[in-house]
């Protein structure tokens, strides 16, 4: 009982610290909130009259997932810097366990994802008031599923890469989410191979899942398939990130 209390206290302290490290970095605030928020407003007003691709019911939840890709970047950066500065190694002398570290990174990232989701969905609902609905509220919480995928990627790359390399590697995730989600361009005319890749990878499935939930199309085959693929990737990547993190810590 005492050891559980101590463990919870350690996880709580680490989570607060991780949260503050990310939120006090002006760059992370700019990329996690201002950039996706600005893009959401800009793309809506520039293009929504030209193509339904940029109607707010698709754009807002799509932008939530796009914004989450930046979470993997800043989480990865934090982990890589902690490793390099001996911050983690020092804390290991206090009797802390690897799972407590991992839990604290995840617990710090999820409220940020929730805040980010609320911010981006609110922008959408303010611009298009008809979006206000129970489904939109539900999509805020459903957004935690793709958030888990991106935080698993952040832990994985943060454990594998140096702080200098992690930015470049995580930008692949951001680019992947941008290009392979299909939210920036119409899918008509794309080759079958490209479409297959988009449907097989998690990025488009994450967007489709959240767009469908926000629009109230929850119990559809498309939503179910997207959720299944998303969960499978999340499970595999999370397991891989835990294994890699623990192996790296042992080596350090």
């Amino acid at each position, binding site marked *: 009982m005492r050891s559980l209390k101590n463990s919870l206290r350690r996880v709580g302290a680490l989570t607060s610290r991780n949260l503050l490290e990310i939120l006090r970095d002006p760059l992370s605030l700019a990329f996690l909130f201002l950039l996706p928020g600005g893009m959401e407003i800009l793309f809506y007003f520039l293009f929504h009259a030209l193509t339904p691709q940029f109607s707010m019911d698709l754009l807002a939840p799509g932008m939530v997932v796009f914004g989450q890709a930046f979470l993997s970047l800043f989480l990865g950066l934090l982990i890589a810097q902690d490793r*390099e500065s001996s911050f983690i*190694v020092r804390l*290991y002398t206090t009797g802390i366990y690897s799972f407590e570290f991992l839990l604290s990174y995840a617990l710090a990232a999820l409220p940020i994802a929730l805040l980010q989701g609320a911010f981006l969905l609110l922008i959408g609902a303010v611009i298009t008031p008809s979006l206000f609905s129970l489904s939109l509220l539900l999509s805020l919480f459903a957004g935690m599923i793709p958030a888990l995928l991106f935080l698993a990627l952040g832990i994985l790359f943060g454990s594998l890469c140096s702080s200098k390399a992690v930015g470049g590697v995580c930008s692949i995730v951001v680019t992947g989410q941008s290009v392979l989600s299909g939210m920036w361009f119409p899918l008509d005319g794309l080759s079958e191979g490209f479409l297959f890749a988009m449907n097989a990878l998690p990025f488009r499935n994450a967007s489709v899942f959240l767009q469908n939930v926000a629009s109230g199309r929850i119990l559809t085959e498309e939503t179910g398939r997207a959720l299944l693929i998303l969960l499978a990737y999340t499970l595999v990547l999370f397991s891989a990130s835990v294994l890699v993190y623990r192996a790296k810590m042992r080596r350090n």
Partner: protein
Amino acid sequence: MAAVISISHLCRDYRDLRAVDDLCLTVEEGEIFALLGVNGAGKTTTVKMLSCLLKPTSGDALLGGFSIVTEPDRVKSLTDISMQETAIARNLTVMENLLFYAAVRGIEKETASARIRALFRDFGLGEVADRKGKLLSGGWQRKLSIALALLSEPKILFLDEPTLGLDVLARRELWQIIGRLREKMTVILTTHDMEEAERLSDRVGIMKGGRLLAVGTAEELKRKTGSESFEDAFVAVVTGGKSK
């Protein structure tokens, strides 16, 4: 005085390299003991094994009567470490760093507050209490790092190259702080700074290539090697008297 650290035939291999080779040593309670050696001598590896960050390939060490091999959790409750690299939270203030570390160490809030007040007084940290870790100078970062290690009031404190990269004034100031620790705990410090080892420590162990070549007070080592200065004594020990 009683031995608080008893190291027995401690070895550590990194693939083909033997980083620490058959280390045997006893350190008494309240002693400041310096492990001195050039880069790659095995000092940091020794400290990492004693603080249970690395498992020894063979051998053992008892710290406060507990084995680093079979009772690492008990050893960790007696020890703390200030690493060579800066190991503080960059975006947390000095005060937040101390409160964070106290929480991780499981120190009750009231006790932590009292200890932080004492550390502010002893280290002069009060004047930078609200400054973020990343905005502190190297000297302040190192002071904070040592203050963090003292929060748990360890019986044994490891200081890995505590003044590396600091300017003369910051170094002198840290020496005063470390010197005052003698009354409260046993300190093991690693250094390759002759002056630091001679000024601060009660005894010095000279390491080279993972082996402990000589142990004694600075005066004893000078006498043994027939050297006038401690630096000459160190050179005589590590070169086997071939270089003066």
